[in-house]
């Protein structure tokens, strides 16, 4: 629909959605500041192992690689969901969101299993400054992914109940930004935490 054909009301609605998108971008940039500071904190705390285990002793590259695959593929499937929003294909949107949810849940499962294994080995977050920083950085990302999963459930319900209305589509757009942002944060974690920890 071209701008000329919009009523005053529709124009206001379109402006509102645009403002929400900008606001959400700003929120993501603020979140990026949080991750940046957690990354910096992790980097300076790598030597602070207090005689406890180091990254080399604890990290499993296979697990991290599998997590990476799951999350990156989930970003792709979310992309397909977004494309289906454009074509207005409701069942495809729900289907792709379901796939995204499963991949994301798999990621969270692997992370929880990794954390539980480390804690069982006596390498919990209270063991050393290094481990505090590791659990907090990676865990903050994990909490974000979990929130994203809840958000996927809520929006899937909205798609089912309300259809792909303009407000629901605009919420899906922001969820997409959030989900892709978490991918970028994870790439940072993989390259700064796991790879140098093992190499």
């Amino acid at each position, binding site marked *: 629909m071209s701008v000329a054909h919009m009523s005053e009301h529709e124009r*206001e609605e379109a402006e509102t959605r645009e*403002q929400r998108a900008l606001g959400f971008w700003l929120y993501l940039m603020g979140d990026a500041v949080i991750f940046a500071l957690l990354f910096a904190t992790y980097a300076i705390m790598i030597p602070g192992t207090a005689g406890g285990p180091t990254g080399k002793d604890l990290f499993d590259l296979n697990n991290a690689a599998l997590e990476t695959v799951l999350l990156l593929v989930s970003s792709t499937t979310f992309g397909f969901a977004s494309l289906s929003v454009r074509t207005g294909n409701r069942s495809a949107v729900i289907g792709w969101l379901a796939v995204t949810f499963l991949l994301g849940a798999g990621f969270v499962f692997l992370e929880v299993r990794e954390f539980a294994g480390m804690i069982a080995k006596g390498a919990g977050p209270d063991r050393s*400054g290094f481990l505090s920083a590791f659990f907090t950085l990676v865990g903050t990302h994990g909490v974000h992914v979990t929130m994203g999963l809840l958000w996927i459930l809520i929006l899937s319900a909205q798609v089912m109940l309300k259809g792909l209305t303009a407000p629901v589509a605009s919420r899906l757009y922001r969820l997409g930004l959030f989900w892709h942002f978490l991918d970028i944060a994870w790439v940072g974690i993989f390259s700064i935490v796991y790879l140098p920890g093992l190499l």
Partner: protein
Amino acid sequence: MFGKLTIEALPLYSAIAAGGAAVTVGGALLVAIVLTWLKAWKYLWTDWLTSVDHKRIGIMYIVLALIMLLRGFVDAIMMRAQQAMALNAGGYLPPEHFDQIFSSHGTIMIFFMAMPFMTGLINLIMPLQIGTRDVAFPWLNAVSLWLSAAGAGLVMVSLVIGKFSTAGWTGYPPYSGIEYNPGVGVDYWIWAILISGVGSTMSGINFVVTILKRRAPGMTLMRMTPFTWTALCASVLMAFAFPAITVACGLLALDRLAGMHFFTNAHGGNMMNYANLFWIWGHPEVYILILPAFGIFSEVVATFSRKRLFGYESLVYATAAIAILSFTVWLHHFFTMGSSANVNAFFGVTTMIIAVPTGVKVFNWLLTMYRGRIDFHPSMMWSIGFIVTFVIGGMTGVLLAIPPADFLMHNTTFLVAHFHNMIIPGVLFGYLAGYMFWFPKAFGFELNRGWGLASFWCWLIGFYLAFMPLYLLGLKGMPRRMETYNDPTWQPYLMVAALGAVVVLCGIASMVMQLYVSIRDRKLTADRTGDPFDGRTLEWSTSSPPPPYNFAVIPTVGDREPFLEAKKNGTAYRRPASYAPIRIPSNTPAGVILGGFAFVLGFAIVWHIWWLVIVSAIVMFITVIARSSDDNAEFTLSAGEVKRMEDERFRELGGRA
């Protein structure tokens, strides 16, 4: 069931602490009784607490700020009294109580006085200045307000249940860690800041989007008012600096609650990282507070000098330069921490550089006044008092920016005098100027000038008496935060400083009197035009108080001072040919519910009442989901309704229209 909370938490350990608790509880009860007596609960709930109107939210922020100003000032005068009498003796405050007082004084004045005051003024005025009907996210705005109030509530409740932090307003570990501070005080401090900090981050985002996306047609960036420009820069800083204090306090909370080792002495902790994280937020925070005050001074000086602001563009560029540079100076707060000489030199140089754009602004204001026809309204007096006093504070700041000099003055009362010399004139005088300037816009009647001037002179003289002696004491080597001391040569200075606090008290009393007298005489000083000071910008083109929709027809802007221009052209009060229906966001209790449960959440974490933490988190979560799934959060004001309100406005205007 109640975690760590037992009857022992009541402050019966000292008569003064119990008295403070009694005053807090008594004050709250008194307000409740008065509200009940006036049968005002329903009105308060439907018209104010659930409101999402930016003007009402702004006013509520300012009410919160003024209440917290009183509390913070009580702390201040108690400290001055203690130090005046504590030579070779204990004074009247036990050490632990004194430590709580200086911690709560700083925390309150920065987070719960200055921040809400600033956010309130921006909320109240900025949307009017850019010619829009509300901020971009009205509901989020209410959430921000109630999260700030929840944080303030936690600080207040610590007076009655348990104790407040003794670790100073900066809460440096390892002293603030669980090992040395096992009580609840630091937890109160952490959760008050975390909760209100989320609100401030969201306010910042809200204002940035509002200013970038909702300006009236024709209002280019370089036609925005100086206040809007400073609000924009401060909001960008809020959005990007507040995450840093969230990280600093969050990690400290993890150390305390989960036994982690971010900032502990042993187990690989690194407490210096805390100082960095804290001040990565802390220095931009100084400019978050001061830039909007600079904006207010710019508006006030132009209006009461009857001249266009001198060098508008240089002021805008100076503001933006300060905003960027503010992220590059944080290390000057801890030159003595042991960074290399080169690192210290870098931050010393950036600190001196940031003084340059600030100096530019001083010339903007001076040259605006030059050959102007100055009206010495109280707002103008705050501005002039600010310029003179602030320059002194700036000079001592440049002195402290030299690392070797800082080594001598670090942690002395010289530093205390320096930052009060920046923040009292730079921030508080600015907000009070804005309060007295825009009060008639918010309420439709003017504040009494006489009491306003009395308040100004008391604050100004009280400030000099209270803080100039601290510069000298700092040079003589007196450390800050001393509960007792044994050098008799210090006492005369401390007595003068205490006298200064008493004079400031007279200033605050004058403000209370001003409010009382002005409300009593409101019929005499009613502002029927909406433009009591021959204003220059769009906020003065509406009625006072403005209607819920601000502008019946969104104005088109062709000048930096659009309302002055319109008055010159004779187009100022022109009636539009017709009115259109206006959509307005509906009130919602969701904001106040979220704030209320954020308070409960914070309280429950402080006392380790874990079931209550879970319950309040779930309630907050459901509230957010329910409200954000609502697609019809607006109602429509019909064209006829708008016309009725506008007709009334034009009747009041009488001959002007």
